């Protein structure tokens, strides 16, 4: 697993390698320093030899300066390496998501993608920094300190040989014991966050039904669970410091007892005794650090898994080799197409069933059908946003799978039902359709989409800044900007998925007229709830539960299709009684 993430170190490799090197050098200094300190006491002070003290002192200062420099460098490189690594990971994920097909996006929810790219990356970044600093530092420190203590006294050093495995075992035991508790805590934490999140977005419902007390109870329950499990986990961890202290203290007492006898026996000096005690601290502290890293890595493990999931997700739709680079015309054909969403466990549950369809270039096609009749699914197969499960979808006479994806999608422009405008100016948003479009082109498509008038009424006109999600324009205006954006691509096929629902009927009619007159060669597919939006189409498709219930002109369908007739009558009834005028308005344009 670590291997899988290791390849994203990339350009941080230099820093990632320099860090442990300087960490090692720093450790060397930290081990040398107590040795020199012992010399000052044992030789210099014992003999009141100021010259010696100054000499060794100078060495010590030099070592301290080196230690400082190494410490700073290792800190600097560690920071660079870990921040850079996090950047690479984020970039890799972001880039990967850009290759996702709709199917992949559906699989991960938006919010989960966001957490993966933010919180999870931060966790891994921290773990990474820990690894390159402490995971190197601690064992090296342990080994060096152990070697130094062996040079001072083998007998005393042997104490460590017993203490290290004992403490190591205890610390790992504690960490292992605590881990499942922490897992539960994190799960409960997610639940707690979920309750808060749902309350924030549903606060109006909570208040409207006066269910504050219920929510408080719900929150209290999960909050108490967090409290309970956290306490359980920490209770285990609370043994860490005492166990650590107990080991150190035992070592110190043993060293004192055996050391005293050794010194009295003349095999050791008093200064060496304090050095060896310093080494005892260093050795056991290293173990403590190791167990900390151990816990840290375990905690970041689930983050790592979640990141890898994103990185290893196979884009459901990829370019073939030798792709077709040009779309000849806007004709479309569906040959026995069936489709089911891949996450649907029940494979018989087809969203579309045996669709056969011929659309000529330049035709206007209306699609109508109830909620869940798979209207959107049908049109999303055309720019290959989803892939047909069975059968063939052809554009310009060629299977969509044979096209280069960018070429296909540039020729098939789609205005999604759930459309999004991005923060930035209107012109920036429009230019999504074509980066190089000049101002006249922008104006032209906006006129087509009946957006030019209202845009020009804004004080900043085309440079008006839209908020995230385009919340500062009305629904109808938003839809028209989205249509203009799609038109800027100069597509061969234009698909409007319920994209004029908030536009008034008059403007809607104007848009359709503009389409008819200005882009006659573009195939237009319009999904709508409103009969008037599709009534004059060359062909109307009635969808019902994923099947074609009828195809024909409005007149034909009125005679032959029950669903169409029902919808038609339900919408036209009111208007016929007192809506004669509306027809006048329609016909006057």
């Amino acid at each position, binding site marked *: 697993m670590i291997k899988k993430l290791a390849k994203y170190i990339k350009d941080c490799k230099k820093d990632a390698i320099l860090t442990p090197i300087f960490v090692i050098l720093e450790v060397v200094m930290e081990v040398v320093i107590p040795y020199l300190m012992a010399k000052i006491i044992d030789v210099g002070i014992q003999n009141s030899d100021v010259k010696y003290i100054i000499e060794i002192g100078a060495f010590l200062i030099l070592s301290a300066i080196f230690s*400082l420099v190494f410490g700073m460098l290792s800190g600097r490189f560690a*920071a660079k390496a870990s*921040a850079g690594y996090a950047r690479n990971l984020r970039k890799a994920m972001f880039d990967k998501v850009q290759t996702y097909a709709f199917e992949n996006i559906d699989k991960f929810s938006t919010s989960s993608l966001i957490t993966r790219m933010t919180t999870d990356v931060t966790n891994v970044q921290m773990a990474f920094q820990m690894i390159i600093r402490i995971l190197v530092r601690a064992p090296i420190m342990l080994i060096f300190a152990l070697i130094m203590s062996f040079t001072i006294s083998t007998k005393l050093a042997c104490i460590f040989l017993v203490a290290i495995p004992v403490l190591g075992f205890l610390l790992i035991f504690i960490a292992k014991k605590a881990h499942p508790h922490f897992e539960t805590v994190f799960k409960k934490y997610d639940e707690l966050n979920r309750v808060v999140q749902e309350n924030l977005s549903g606060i109006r419902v909570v208040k409207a039904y006066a269910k504050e007390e219920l929510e408080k109870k719900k929150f209290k329950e999960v909050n108490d669970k967090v409290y309970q499990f956290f306490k359980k986990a920490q209770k285990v961890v609370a043994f860490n410091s005492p166990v650590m*202290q107990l080991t150190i203290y035992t070592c110190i007492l043993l060293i004192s007892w055996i050391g005293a006898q050794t010194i009295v026996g003349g095999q050791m000096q008093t200064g060496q005794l304090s050095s060896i005690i310093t080494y005892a601290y260093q050795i056991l502290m290293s173990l403590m650090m190791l167990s900390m890293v151990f816990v840290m890595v375990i905690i970041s493990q689930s983050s790592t898994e979640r990141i890898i999931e994103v990185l290893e997700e196979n884009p459901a739709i990829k370019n073939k080799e030798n792709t077709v680079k040009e779309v000849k015309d806007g004709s479309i054909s569906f040959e026995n197409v069936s489709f089911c969403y891949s996450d649907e*466990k029940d494979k018989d549950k087809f969203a579309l069933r045996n669709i056969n369809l011929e659309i000529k270039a330049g035709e206007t096609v209306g699609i109508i059908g109830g909620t869940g009749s798979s209207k959107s699914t049908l049109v999303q197969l055309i720019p290959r946003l989803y892939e047909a499960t069975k059968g063939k979808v052809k554009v310009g006479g060629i299977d969509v799978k044979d096209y280069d994806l960018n070429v296909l999608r540039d020729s098939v422009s789609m205005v999604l039902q759930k459309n*999004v405008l991005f923060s930035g100016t209107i012109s920036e948003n429009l230019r999504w359709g074509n980066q190089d479009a000049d101002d006249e082109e922008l104006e032209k498509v906006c006129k087509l989409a009946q957006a030019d008038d209202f845009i020009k009424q804004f004080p900043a006109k085309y440079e008006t800044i839209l908020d995230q999600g385009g919340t500062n324009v009305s629904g109808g205006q938003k839809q028209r900007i989205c249509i203009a954006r799609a038109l800027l691509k100069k597509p061969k096929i234009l698909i409007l998925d319920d994209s004029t629902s908030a536009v008034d*009927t008059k403007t809607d009619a104007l848009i359709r007229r503009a389409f008819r007159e200005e882009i006659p060669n573009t195939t237009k597919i319009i999904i709508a709830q409103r009969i008037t939006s599709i009534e004059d189409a060359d062909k109307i498709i009635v969808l019902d539960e994923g099947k074609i219930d009828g195809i024909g002109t409005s007149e034909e369908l009125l005679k032959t299709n029950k669903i169409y007739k029902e919808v038609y009558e339900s919408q036209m009834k009111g208007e016929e009684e007192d809506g004669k005028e509306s027809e006048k308005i329609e016909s006057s344009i």
Partner: protein
Amino acid sequence: MEKKVKKSKVAFRLLKYVFTTYKIQFFIVFIAIVISALANVMGIQFIQRLIDEYIVPLMGNQNPDFSSLLQAILSMGVIYIIGVLATYIYNRLMINISQGILNKIRTQMFDHMQTLPIGYFDSHSHGEVMSTYTNDVDALRECLSQSIPQVFSAIVTMITVLISMFTTNIYLTLVVIAMVIVMTFVSRYLGGNSSRYFVKQQEDLGKVNGYIEEMMGGQKVVKVFCYEEESKKRFDELNENLCNSTTSANTYANILMPCILNIGNLGYVLVAVIGGILSINGILSIGNIAAFLQYVKAFTNPLGQVSQQMNFIVMALAGAERIFQLIDEKPEEDEGYVTLVNAKMEDGKIVESKERTGLWAWKHPHHDGRITYARLRGKMTFEDVVFGYTPKKIVLHNISLEAKEGQKISFVGATGAGKTTITNLINRFYDIQSGKIRYDGINIQKIKKADLRRSLGMVLQDTSLFTGTIRDNIRYSRPEASDEEVVAAAKLANADNFIKHLPKGYDTIINGSGEGLSQGQRQLLSIARAALDNAPVLILDEATSSIDTRTEKIVQDGMDKLMKGRTVFVIAHRLSTIRNSDLIMVLDQGRIIERGNHNELMAKKGMYYGLYTGAIEIE
């Protein structure tokens, strides 16, 4: 300066939590930390005594007697064991204290959040509030369970060591103090830079998060427009900025520790040299110098620890400040005293009933102690109501209207005309600036908010679902409803059909964002919820906007049943659904410009006529 005062206030308030709830426990923690630190310092002194009193006298002795040494070691062992126990005790108790406080703070935050007016949620982004619950509380936990005991223990250690130093030698102590001053300057400089960049890092992180959020939300649009490369470019830029500020912040944080430790090492040398000179002049014993040098080390280590913890403490205090801001937010005022009760008729008089009778009454206590009951009828009047979200910007001007019992009142008008605002005044999501709203003749200010809202069923355009089963979600409006009632409500809303087709029917678990359900299906659930509530007054705010016209027609039958006998306020953008209203109000820029029924308004050939015929854009 002001900021510092604020910080100390926050810290003080935080400590108050500790002292009020966990006075005794915290006192024990305090004692335990002191004991633990003392045991540690005594250990250091013991090494010195070991050398001076037990080893040096025995040196050169042919038959050394180690029995007194053994005794000393054993007594030290006892002290150590006490120290270890003390360590365990304070670690263990701190868990109770920190988790207890966090639990309390979270409950306070959430409970308080439930009392806040809708305006609060309008002006604070969800992300912002969420981050208080997660990041800020986490920072606080780290601080309470780790930093505070560590810093505390470090301070106790440093004080005891300092006292020992003073008793050993004043001059050398001064050297150490000089060293500490240098350290303080260095750590202030580094710490300052570090926290400056940490702030910058948070900002950059916010930007990256924001961009990711926007792009992930619009990923399908990105695909449709083949905009992948462009979006990568902008992301790279933001990502690079974040990387830079993270590097700087971490660099300063990382080099703090080596700096402190090595300044300590320099101090050590200085003490050794000066001590050496002093000892030659006979001012200081060798044992004393050796002891002093140990003290220097014992002093620097905790100092390093404290300097490392400072970052966490600063972050925790910043978090605590935001937490307290939430807790201090002014709650929704509720001075109402008229309550809604179940009622039944006895001898032609209304009396209170314990069970749900389907008949509701307002219970009106009077100053003189009398209690009167008035039947809930659903009559609603607006008298010259003026409202603005801020006092300066009035969005509703002198609205007067009367809805009689059982009438269907509709509001039409462009986005921003004030339709939703009016309905939000009825349930007192917002309070009016002047004028009066009366409900069955009672000023709604006098009605207890929860009861007022209980009497109003609401279906909003944005349907909010909660994680749980479909059944639970429908039952949200009335948790005590039976399964049969739930199904009946779902049938009424025409939701039963699609629910039955779900893998587990009514027991299908859905999450809060209702993934897997279409917008229309979610609206059906929301209508079912209102149907189950069976409230005498209904507010339907674009309740069927995402339902296709054919389904809408079917739902409409249910809706008509639902609306029968109730006062209903409807906002709809498909005007065909409100044609049969008793009264239609046409709103424009916060004013009612036309009112009447469909036929009257059509005859007027005004704004409504324009909207209805499609000549005027509705949104």
